[in-house]
């Protein structure tokens, strides 16, 4: 079933299977696009306003211009996917699993990725403000050229993860746990590391004293 070049309004479009296919230019509003299964496919310009996109399973897919506004995208599983120009506003992507993914040029505001896990995943040139990553797990991930304002990672766990050339303004790492991580050439103005715990983590060309709150930090010789 091809749904390319379509506009759906108040419809049940759940359960789509998209295998070795290309779909493009879909605008959905007030619709259910949950339980999609996608593999080795290309998705260009999928725009959702007030939609459900829950329980998505996608493997080896290329997403370009995926846009979520006032939408729920909970419990998605994304493996080996590439996301270009992902836009997420006023939306929930909670309890998701991302592995082997690369997200480039993501823009997100007032959205939640809480309780998600990220493995072997790279975020490049994102711009995010007021986004929640509370209680997320990051393993073997890379943040590169990221620009964040008031992005929140409280109680998150970072393992073998690097932040490179990132501007992390007012970012909240309260009670976060870092194991074998690196902050390289990052800006940390007004960042909060209250009660953060560091193990084998270094800060080349990064001044952690830019942070506004280092109270209770463990594992660093401040």
């Amino acid at each position, binding site marked *: 079933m091809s749904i390319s070049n379509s506009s759906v309004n108040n419809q049940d479009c759940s359960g789509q299977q998209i295998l070795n296919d290309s779909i493009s230019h879909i605008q959905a509003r007030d619709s259910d696009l949950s339980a999609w299964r996608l593999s080795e496919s290309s998705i260009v310009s999928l725009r959702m306003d*007030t*939609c*459900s996109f829950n329980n998505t399973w996608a493997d080896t897919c290329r997403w370009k211009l995926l846009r979520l506004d*006032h*939408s*729920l995208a*909970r419990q998605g599983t994304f493996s080996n996917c590439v996301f270009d120009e992902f836009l997420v506003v*006023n*939306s*929930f992507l*909670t309890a998701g699993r991302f592995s082997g993914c690369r997200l480039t040029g993501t823009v997100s505001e*007032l*959205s*939640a990725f*809480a*309780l998600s896990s990220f493995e072997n995943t790279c975020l490049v040139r994102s711009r995010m403000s*007021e*986004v*929640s990553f*509370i*209680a997320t797990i990051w393993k073997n991930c890379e943040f590169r050229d990221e620009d964040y304002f*008031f992005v*929140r990672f*409280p*109680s998150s766990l970072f393992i073998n993860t690097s932040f490179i050339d990132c501007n992390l303004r007012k970012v*909240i790492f*309260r*009670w976060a746990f870092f194991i074998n991580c690196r902050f390289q050439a990052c800006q940390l103005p007004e960042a909060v590391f*209250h*009660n953060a715990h560091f193990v084998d983590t270094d800060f080349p060309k990064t001044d952690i004293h830019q942070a506004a709150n280092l109270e209770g930090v463990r594992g660093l010789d401040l």
Partner: protein
Amino acid sequence: MIGRNIIFRRFTVGSYPINGYLLADENSRLGVFIDPGGFSEDIASFIENRQIELRHIFFTHGHWDHTDGLPEFMNRYSLQCYAGKEEVRAASHILFGGERLNVGKLFFQSLLTPGHTPGGISYYCPPAQAVFTGDALFCGSVGGTTSHTNAQMQLDSVRQHIFSLPDDTLVFPAHGPMTTVAAEKYANPFFR
């Protein structure tokens, strides 16, 4: 987004911007605005385009950044206002927690969540599986308080009334990003 037959929109409102939320019953078109910290043409257009009959204003508390837009709302719509005790002078209905508030077929339960202010109210909407917490609970944080006693009261009331909701309940605070009950209950550092 948050339940069948529910119209929902978040707006950034006010000079000290907060999240204001509009919900309406899709069938009756009756609607409520939570925390009118300001008014904007975006709100007016949305109400007009979606043919919403705005009937109610819910205040989570009476701080000016949550109430400043009320005169403009009152000028444009015929409204009933709801707030906790001694929070908002314009409130026509005083809430103490536990009241059921109907908006068409939509309904809300008021939850007393004091601490940030003495009469703070959160609004739980079971059909939407969502709770609107004002400044009582933020993503990974809580609103400021003026004393240790008030801070403890806030934590206790959130534990009692918000964390007892189903884990997948969506939490919409007045400031910052949305979150869920599970994320806050298990990971908000202020509740450790």
